[in-house]
């Protein structure tokens, strides 16, 4: 029981990060109908921004402000930087190709991904950085759930992810801007005719998706410790998988997909072998694309004949 509980917490933590990343993929696909493969690099820049804020504030061993304030500033800093990177991507890599064939922005996204990786390598060097979170928040500080102790940082990650997802869901359903996003994702032309500023909606979508990715970056830095220039690549692929499994274009689907992928990884490692981790995750991607391409909660695409 203890083993299952521990692995469930592990899966929930990882799944929360994937869910935040997958949201960005889903939001952009929902609005623009294309996959932003550079999204993983947006998350990577967020992680480095969080690290930078932590360093400016004195680092884990010499923090100049209370821990809660440092964490808040790290999240805010990451969101700002990631949003900036996301907006720059939209403006320079995707907007000029909006009326091009569907392949063009996809290729641009892949190129942008490599560009950002190389930029990060030049800016931050190949050396990984560590948040050294156990010094910031000792491992002994945590929540006792039955026989296991859950580190406070994991609790923070899970709670933050849940809060952000709830806020996003509320915003999309209830706010005027959220309705505009839903309208554009349903039918761009009709939304434009109804007076929705489509360009603005796209910008807001990138802003929010990228900000969530930035939060994910800081979470990874806190829980798993190591950030490096290449970290966005695999994380981006898994988040993409999560978005597809949950239903690309669906916000609840992205959340569900992220959690499912997180659990799949944890339980595969726990009950089969860590060697099969990526095999299972990407196997799920292939399976869903073959059997149910719209994912769990996605809408099948209707084409007028």
């Amino acid at each position, binding site marked *: 029981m203890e*083993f299952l509980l*521990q*692995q469930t917490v*592990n*899966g929930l*933590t*990882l799944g929360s990060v994937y869910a935040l990343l997958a949201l960005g993929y889903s939001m952009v696909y929902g609005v623009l109908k294309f996959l932003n493969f550079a999204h993983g690099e947006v998350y990577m820049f967020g992680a*480095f*921004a969080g*690290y*930078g*804020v932590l*360093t*400016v504030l004195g680092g884990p061993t010499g923090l100049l402000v209370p821990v809660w304030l440092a964490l808040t500033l790290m999240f805010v*800093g990451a969101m*700002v*930087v990631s949003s900036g990177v996301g907006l720059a991507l939209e403006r320079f890599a995707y907007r000029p190709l909006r009326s091009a064939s569907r392949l063009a922005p996809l290729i641009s996204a892949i190129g942008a991904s490599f560009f950002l990786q*190389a930029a990060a*390598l*030049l*800016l*931050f*060097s*190949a*050396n*990984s*950085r*560590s948040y050294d*979170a*156990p010094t910031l928040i000792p*491992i002994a500080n945590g929540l006792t759930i039955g026989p*296991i*102790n859950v*580190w406070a940082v994991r609790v923070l990650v899970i709670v933050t992810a849940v809060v952000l997802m709830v806020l996003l869901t509320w915003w999309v359903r209830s706010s005027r801007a959220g309705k505009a996003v839903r309208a554009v994702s349903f039918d761009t032309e009709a939304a434009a005719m109804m007076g929705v500023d489509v360009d603005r909606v796209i910008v807001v979508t990138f802003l929010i998706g990228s900000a969530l990715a930035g939060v994910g970056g800081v979470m*990874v830095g806190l*829980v*798993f*410790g*190591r950030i*490096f*220039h*290449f*970290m966005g*690549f*695999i994380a981006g692929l898994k988040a993409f998988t999560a978005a597809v499994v949950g239903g690309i274009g669906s916000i609840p689907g992205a959340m569900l997909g992220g959690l499912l992928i997180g659990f799949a*990884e*944890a*339980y*595969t*490692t*726990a009950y089969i*072998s*860590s*060697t099969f*981790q*990526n095999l299972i995750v990407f196997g799920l991607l292939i399976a869903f694309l073959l059997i149910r391409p719209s994912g769990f909660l996605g809408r099948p695409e209707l084409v007028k004949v």
Partner: protein
Amino acid sequence: MLALALVVAACGDDTGGDTTTTAGVTTTEGETDTTAGETTTTGAEAMACEATIGVMGPFTGEVAFIGEVQLNWFNYALDTWNEEMGYDFQMVEADTQFDVAQSATLAQQLLDNPDVLGVVGPAGSDQVDAAGAVFEAGDPDLTVISPSSTRSGITAQYTGLFRTVPTDDDQGPTTADFMVEQGAQSVFIVDDQSSYSTGLADTTQDNLETADVTVTRESVSQDVTDFSALVGTIPDDTDFVYLPWQVAANGQIFANQMAEQGKEAVIFGSDGMDSDDFTQAGSYIAAFAPDIAAIEGSVSILEGYLEQYENTSTFGPPVWAAARVIFEAIDRVCQAGETPDRANVQAEVRNTDQTTSILGSPISFTEDGDLVEGTFFIFQIQEDGSKTLVQ
């Protein structure tokens, strides 16, 4: 504040030198500062001694942290050599990106460059294998010295291949014997799916099982940064967790997550974990040299390096050793009044007989190209992060 944060996060390295890059191969002129009266060359023949040395490594890509250190140490060795000797040796960079196909392509490019008299690298055994096949087929006289490939038997396959690190045949048994001496009954081994790691894990596992130690074997990619699920599978009666990993920072994450889940097994890391990124108190690491900061003749070299470059790792000093072997071989050819070519340089490399080196041990090669006196040391990490030699 955000701009400041990104700048602080950057603190990029400046490797210096003027570079031009064509299709993955970069030519750089060594930074030479020769002052009349301070050079140690003798004779007109030595002053005319010219050479180009290739350096192959993963300078970009997912293990760029290894390649960057290796490139920095090579540049440092080259600059220092040129300054000491009044030479103007040149270098050609070949970025393998830790990719086998890329390594083979770059090997051909280096082979086709008639000025290249020797090569330092590649880093990984798979890349050495790929490049080695090209070099062997094209010109077995070209000397290739890998500063980090430890796969047993690889030098025997290629005429011109040497290395300045001991092999898995040395590290695996040394590691296993130590664990057995410590009373290990159960060991959990996790490889990181690199050729370095799997080879070492295999050798260590074989030796442990021969000694009737129960071994559990797992495998995880270097890209993974969450090991919590894997940590959860470590049996409570495990004595040692052996991590033959190249990424020391991942080892620290693993250690943190073990502590998080109350796992009490002691971590034993391979030489790839010998880095400031892994500081888990009580853990052991293997290293192919004593801490060079504690070697009298190497301290000044290390200090000189750190004045120019931000940090180093275990992957650095063997590059210096490999570079110096080639440089000194070329110099001996020149001193003998000959024009250095690949054949006579390799002959001199085989004659290498350094009584001491940056690694604190002599350097000479077996017929196959391995170190005659390769040995591994075991250190234990203390609370303050320092290392104490235990074997």
